[in-house]
């Protein structure tokens, strides 16, 4: 696609550094916002753009910002969620690695709009090398007068700090993230109160994803109206999709919302088709937490329409026959993939990452892992399959944070769409296991 917005300049050598970034129009959006637009005008542009959160939930960004409590005299905070730990998702890493200044620009404009003077980037600890890249970009921005006291001679001041996590998926959940940023265990908080009222240190706080915030600069540059014309319906603009699994060209792609899923999988400009000329079996399109769909349902909706890369189209059919755009972590499975093994693997992930506060999540993920282990390893019973469905149902909606749901949905959807495969594991374990072993990837 030519109409790249976030990644338009990614191939320019040296674009990670301030000088090159600046020569290619960098920080013009900050100048425009701070010099020519009022706080209300910036918010209005973001509202008009139709931008929705890119961290997974797709919540309208302007609306989230409007909830921020501006009445108290407490300081307000902006926290950038760079925890990126959802299996299948590696887009924020790509963006920060190549275009750190695009994020810094977005943080400055967003902080200006929110009346924030201190902003933290919470980044997963495993991205240690990225801390240096970001701190360096912050230093450069400060040297050139875009951070610090009285930016560009206005009375707006801002400091940005990078804060590393230390290995915990749950810290991507916004209230766990805030706990972690306060130097505690990453235990999600009970909501309400929402961060917009009581967030970091009990102060009004906005938490947004890296990609969401990086999009704010381009929106200010082109205008919210122009941005809203890109994409399709309520899925405006472009989205970064990180594609992985059994495809020819794994990587991060910026797509215009509305691209048919089929084009994304098969066109040479994106995934380039299934590797080894095999058949497509299934896709998890939005990070491991969203429902898995078999090939026919990911390419076309149950009503026979072409499935598109938009929030609405991917969700068409709800959980019966649909899924979610989520974080844009697009995981592709070919004909040889074992859905049971994959479901066991992902359930082990959620069990490992459960913070342990709620019994349904702490115990339920462990039970599901054990049951799936025995089905996968040829010791399952037929009744185990419905037992899994029941456990998943009892977790869903009964927990403090959405990790419980995120653990339940993959199991429920795998059984919904691939029940026969689970039954085969129970009925013909020896056959299934020997076939799987013969398929182990050979280098």
């Amino acid at each position, binding site marked *: 696609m030519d109409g790249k917005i976030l990644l338009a300049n990614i191939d320019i050598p040296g674009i990670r550094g301030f000088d090159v970034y600046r020569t290619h129009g960098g920080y013009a959006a900050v100048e425009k916002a701070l010099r020519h637009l009022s706080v209300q005008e910036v918010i209005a542009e973001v509202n008009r753009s139709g931008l929705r959160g890119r961290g997974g939930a797709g919540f309208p960004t302007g609306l989230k910002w409007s909830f921020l409590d501006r009445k108290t005299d407490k300081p307000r905070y902006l926290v950038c969620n760079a925890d990126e*730990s*959802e299996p299948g998702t590696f887009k*924020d890493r790509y963006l920060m690695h190549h275009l750190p200044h695009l994020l810094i620009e977005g943080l400055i404009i967003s902080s200006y709009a929110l009346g924030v003077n201190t902003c933290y980037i919470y980044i997963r600890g495993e991205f240690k090398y990225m801390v240096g890249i970001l701190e360096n970009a912050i230093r450069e921005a400060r040297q050139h007068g875009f951070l610090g006291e009285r930016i560009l001679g206005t009375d707006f001041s801002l400091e940005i700090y990078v*804060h590393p996590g*230390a290995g915990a998926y749950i810290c991507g959940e916004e209230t766990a993230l805030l706990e972690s940023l*306060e130097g505690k265990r990453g235990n999600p908080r009970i909501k309400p109160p929402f961060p917009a009222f009581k967030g970091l240190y009990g102060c009004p706080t906005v938490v947004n994803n890296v990609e969401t915030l990086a999009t704010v600069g381009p929106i200010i540059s082109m205008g919210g109206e122009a941005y809203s014309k890109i994409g399709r319906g309520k899925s405006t603009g472009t989205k970064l999709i*990180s594609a992985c699994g059994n495809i020819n060209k794994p990587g991060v792609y910026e797509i215009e919302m509305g691209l048919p899923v089929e084009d994304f999988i098969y066109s040479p400009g994106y995934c380039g088709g299934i590797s080894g000329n095999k058949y497509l079996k299934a896709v998890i399109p939005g990070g*491991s937490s969203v429902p898995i769909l078999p090939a026919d349902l990911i390419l076309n909706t149950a009503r026979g329409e072409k499935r598109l890369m938009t929030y609405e189209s991917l969700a068409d059919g709800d959980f019966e026959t649909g899924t979610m755009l989520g974080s844009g972590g697009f995981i592709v499975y070919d004909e040889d993939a074992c859905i049971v093994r994959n479901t066991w693997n992902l359930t082990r992930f959620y069990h490992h990452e459960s913070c342990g506060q709620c019994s349904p999540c702490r115990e339920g993920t462990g039970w599901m892992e054990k049951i799936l282990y025995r089905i996968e390893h040829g010791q399952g019973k037929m009744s185990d399959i419905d037992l899994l469905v029941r456990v998943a149902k009892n977790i869903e909606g009964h927990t403090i944070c959405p990790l419980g749901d995120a653990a339940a949905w993959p199991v429920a959807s795998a059984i919904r769409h691939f029940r026969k495969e689970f039954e085969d594991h129970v009925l013909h374990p020896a056959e299934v296991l020997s076939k799987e072993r013969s398929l182990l990837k050979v280098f």
Partner: protein
Amino acid sequence: MQNNVISHPQFTREGKKVAFTPEVLEKVHCLMERYPEGRQKSALLPVLHIAQEELGGYLSVDIMDYVASLLDIQPIEVYEVATFYSMFYLGKMGTYVIEVCRTGPCAISGGEQILAHLQDVLEIKPGETTPDGIFTLKEVECLGSCGTGPVMQVNTEYYEKLTPGKVDKLLEDLKEYADRNKPGESTWMEKFC
């Protein structure tokens, strides 16, 4: 505070006196200043990263108590954090900690074989350290690098698109540097302030 009442099966207590060098201390103070007055506890995660790296590769009770005193918080506030996050180690590790991603996307692109290969070559299981103390093998969850799987980190440096051949070559190289710092390895210290 009297902390010998608190114990944990994995805790290591050595009764050693530990302290940062003045250079590190300066960093720690700079880090604490990034958070509002009275919120210096926020610096705990970055300071623990630095402590683990600068003071011997894992967090003993002595180190955790020392960090608590620096941040003016209770030792238990450090213990509960150190035991929650997977990047903090509570006991002695090998010179190189090899952390192999075991999650779905890596698993379907050969991650299971990489782990099996490492177990064969190093003759240890996940969670164990080779008798010469050079390598510790660990399984970890998604490292945010699924498009370039299979992936592992060695002392938090990424190694991607692994094959058994690449792994063998890397282990050879690492052994060669085992008694000194590997060139190019970056520290937490140099990242901040």
